[in-house]
């Protein structure tokens, strides 16, 4: 797999503007359980709550139903 394919796989198919439509949201239970996994992950930048792998703000990304962890943790 090329670096470009790896990069695309890592950032996934969801995008920040998906947050504008509540139809894209996971339920609160799923979002919370995902975010708890992020909070205990060494790849999370604690200051900004961004993932070092994908660069996303995980408090927001975990809310998107179709989003996935770049490390496959959720």
């Amino acid at each position, binding site marked *: 797999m090329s670096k*470009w394919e790896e990069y695309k796989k890592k950032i996934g198919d969801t995008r920040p503007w998906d947050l504008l439509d509540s139809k894209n949201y996971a339920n609160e239970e799923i979002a919370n359980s995902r975010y708890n996994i992020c909070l205990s992950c060494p790849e999370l930048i604690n200051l900004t709550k961004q993932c070092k792998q994908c660069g996303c703000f995980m408090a927001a990304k975990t809310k998107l139903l179709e989003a996935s962890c770049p490390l496959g943790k959720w």
Partner: protein
Amino acid sequence: MINFNDYNWAFPGVKKQKINAKINAKALAFVIGTEVAETIAADEDFCNLLIKSDSFAESSIKDDLVNQIYYVDLIKDSSVLNTIACYEKLQAVLLSEPKIYDLLDPKYKYGKMAGPQWSFINDQFIIPGEYE
């Protein structure tokens, strides 16, 4: 070591400063397969350096994941011409053997509008989908 941010025109206010300093720019597209993976507008000298490189390679300098700085070696005649510090996407693109095109070349009908996720087919930039 070259810091891409010093040459990148895509920051607010930078364009005016560069023009006042009589620095010329080029706009480049990096195409992987038929996909326009990334486009940049940067100082002409910087773009020419990318164009004249034979290839790009992972640098011996370790990526700075906390500050999101990624490194790529520019290779010419099997030796390292220089090293670029850039963002992750540009690193991923450069390390994937992209073809580099000058977006301002008048032979590309829609070059000035092209951006990431466009296609490059039959030597032209096109919006993927109904225009193919």
